[in-house]
C-alpha cells in the first residue's frame, strides 16, 4: 500500500530523514516507533505533503505522490489524524464529521440547500461517529468534548474521508489507560478493513496492535519487522537503552 524509498530531508545542517525506506502492507497495522527527535514528525510531514522531501519517493497504492499537494492526498485515499487535536472547535461534533464527509461528496459549490439537513452528509457522519463511540455527543460543540473524545473525533474525521490508509499521529497522546483502551478497541475493529500507519510512543499499544513495526532513530530506519523480532533486535535494544519513553 505504501512504499517509502530512499527518502531524504534536511533542514539546514539537520538531517531529519536519512535514507529512509520501508513498506506498509495492505491491511496491516504498521507502527513507527523511535525515541524523541527520531524524525517522526518530519516523516509525517512528507507523507501528508506539508513538507517537501529533498529526494526519494513515496509510492501510495502504486501512485507516486511525492509532489501531490496536501488537499489532494486525501483524494488519493490517504487520511491523517493529528497529534494535537486539530478539530473544528466551534462547530458541533456532527458538523465536524459531516465536513469530512462533504469533502469527498463531490464539489461544494452548492449555494442554496442547507447542508445541515442533507441526509447524504448527515447519515454517514453519524455512522462514523458511532464507529468511534461518539454518537451521543453528536450535537455538542466539539470544543466542549473531553481530551479523549477529541482523539476519538480525530479518528472519526479521518475515517469519514473513506481512506485506503489511515495515518494516525500519536492517537494515544495524553490519554489515561481507560481512554487508551477505547481507542485500541476502535483500531482493532478496523483491522483488515483498512491499512493503518501508526506513529506511537506507547509500547504496550504498539505491541498489542501492530502487525509490523519500523524503528526510526535519527531519521534512519534501523529495522522493519514483526513485533517479536523487533523486541529481540539488538540494534533496537541499543537505541532504546536509557530511553525514558519506554512505558512499562
Amino acid at each position, binding site marked *: 500500500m505504501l512504499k517509502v524509498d530512499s527518502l531524504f530531508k534536511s533542514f539546514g545542517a539537520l538531517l531529519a530523514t536519512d535514507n529512509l525506506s520501508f513498506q506498509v502492507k495492505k491491511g496491516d497495522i504498521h507502527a513507527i516507533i523511535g525515541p524523541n527527535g527520531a524524525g517522526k514528525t518530519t516523516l509525517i510531514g512528507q507523507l*501528508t505533503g506539508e513538507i517537501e522531501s529533498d529526494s526519494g519517493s513515496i509510492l501510495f497504492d502504486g501512485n507516486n505522490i511525492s509532489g501531490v499537494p*496536501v*488537499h*489532494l*492526498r*486525501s*483524494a488519493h485515499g490517504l*487520511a*491523517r489524524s*493529528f497529534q494535537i487535536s*486539530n*478539530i*473544528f*472547535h*466551534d*462547530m458541533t461534533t456532527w*458538523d465536524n464529521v*459531516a*465536513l*469530512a464527509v*462533504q*469533502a*469527498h461528496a463531490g464539489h*461544494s*459549490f*452548492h*449555494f*442554496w*440547500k*442547507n*447542508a*445541515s439537513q*442533507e441526509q447524504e*452528509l448527515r447519515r454517514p457522519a453519524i455512522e462514523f461517529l458511532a464507529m468511534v463511540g461518539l454518537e451521543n455527543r453528536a450535537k455538542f460543540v466539539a470544543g466542549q468534548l473531553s481530551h479523549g473524545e477529541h482523539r476519538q473525533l480525530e479518528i472519526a*474525521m479521518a475515517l*469519514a*474521508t473513506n481512506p485506503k490508509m489511515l495515518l494516525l499521529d500519536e492517537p494515544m497522546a495524553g490519554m489515561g489507560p481507560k481512554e487508551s483502551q477505547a481507542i485500541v478497541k476502535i483500531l482493532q475493529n478496523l483491522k483488515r478493513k483498512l491499512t493503518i500507519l501508526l506513529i506511537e510512543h506507547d509500547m504496550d499499544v504498539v505491541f498489542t496492535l501492530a502487525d509490523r513495526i519500523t524503528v526510526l532513530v535519527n531519521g534512519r530506519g534501523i529495522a522493519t519487522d514483526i513485533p517479536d523480532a523487533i523486541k529481540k533486535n539488538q540494534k533496537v535494544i541499543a537505541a532504546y537503552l536509557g530511553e525514558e519513553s519506554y512505558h512499562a
Partner: protein
Amino acid sequence: MKGTPRIIFIVILMLGLGVVPLLADYFDEPFYTVMFSRMLILSIGAVSLNLILGFGGMVSFGHAVYLGIGSYMVGIGTMHAVEDGIEWMANGFLQITLAIVFSALTGLVIGAISLRTRGVYFIMITLAFSQMLYFVAVGNERYGGDDGLSLYMRSDFNGLIDITNDNSLYYLNFVILLLSLYLSHRLINSRFGMVIRGAKSNEQRMRAIGFPVFRYQLVAFVIAGTICGIAGVLSANQTEFVNPSVMHWTRSGDLIIMTVLGGLGTLFGPVIGAVAFLFLEEFLSGITEYWQLYFGPMLVLVVIFARGGIDGMLVGLDKWWSRNSTVKNEEID
C-alpha cells in the same frame, strides 16, 4: 417562537427600518429618511463584508473599493447620458449589471493575488490594492478626478420604480438589504458556506480532509465584492454625488468597524453595527466638533472589551433571560 430579548430586538429593528419613511413623512422630517437610507446602504456593504470577514475570517481591508466601483458605474453612465445625450447609459438595470460585472472582475483579480497570502500580508495587500484603485480614480480627470462627479439625475429603471423620489429609493435599498440578508443566510448554511466557515475555524484541517480551500475563498471574495458593488450603485443614487473618497481605505475601515461592532459572523450583526455606527457618528458630531477624539478611543475600548459585538451582548442578554425565566417556571410549578 420564543420571545427572547435578542429576537425581539432584531424584529423591532427590522420593522423599524421598514417604517422609517412613513414616520418621517408623518413628522415632516424627511432628513431622517435620507439618514436611514444611508444606514441601509452601508448595512448592505457590511452584510457583504461579513460573509468573508465574519464567517470566512478573511480580514479584507479594501472592501470599500466595490462601493467605489458601483458608484462610478452610475456616475460615469449618468454623466454620459446627460452630457453626451447617450440616454441608455443612465439606465439603472445597465448600471447595476456593469457594477456586478466589474465588481466581480475586480474581486477576482484582487482575490486571486491576495488569497495566496495569509494574516498580516492579506490585510496589507487588500488595503494596498483598494488604495491603488482610489488613486486611479483620483487621477482620472475625465471622470471628476479628486473632485468627483455630480449626478444630475438618478438611475432610470424604465418606469419600474422612480427613485427620484427619496421614499422609493429608501424602499429599493430596504428590499435589496432584505435580499442580501436572505442570500447571506442561504449561503452560510449551504455546503459552500460550510467550507468557508470551516476554513475560518481550521484551515489546515480543511486541507487535510481534502478541500482545495483557495478556490472557495476566492468565490466567496467575489460574491462579497459583487454585493457591495450593488450597494455602491445605491450609494451614488442616494448622495447624487460620486467621488474617490467613497473608496478611501478609511471607508473600508468603517465597514470593518460596523461588522465587528454588530457582531462578527452573525446574520443581523452587520445591520445592527451599521445602524449603531451611524447613530453614534450623528450623535457625537452633534455634541462636539472633535467627535473623533471620543470615537477613536471608544473603538479601541469596544475592541478590547466587547468581543462579540452588540449581537454578542444580546446573546448574553438572552442567556440571562432564559435562566431567569426557567426559575420563574419552576416556581409556578
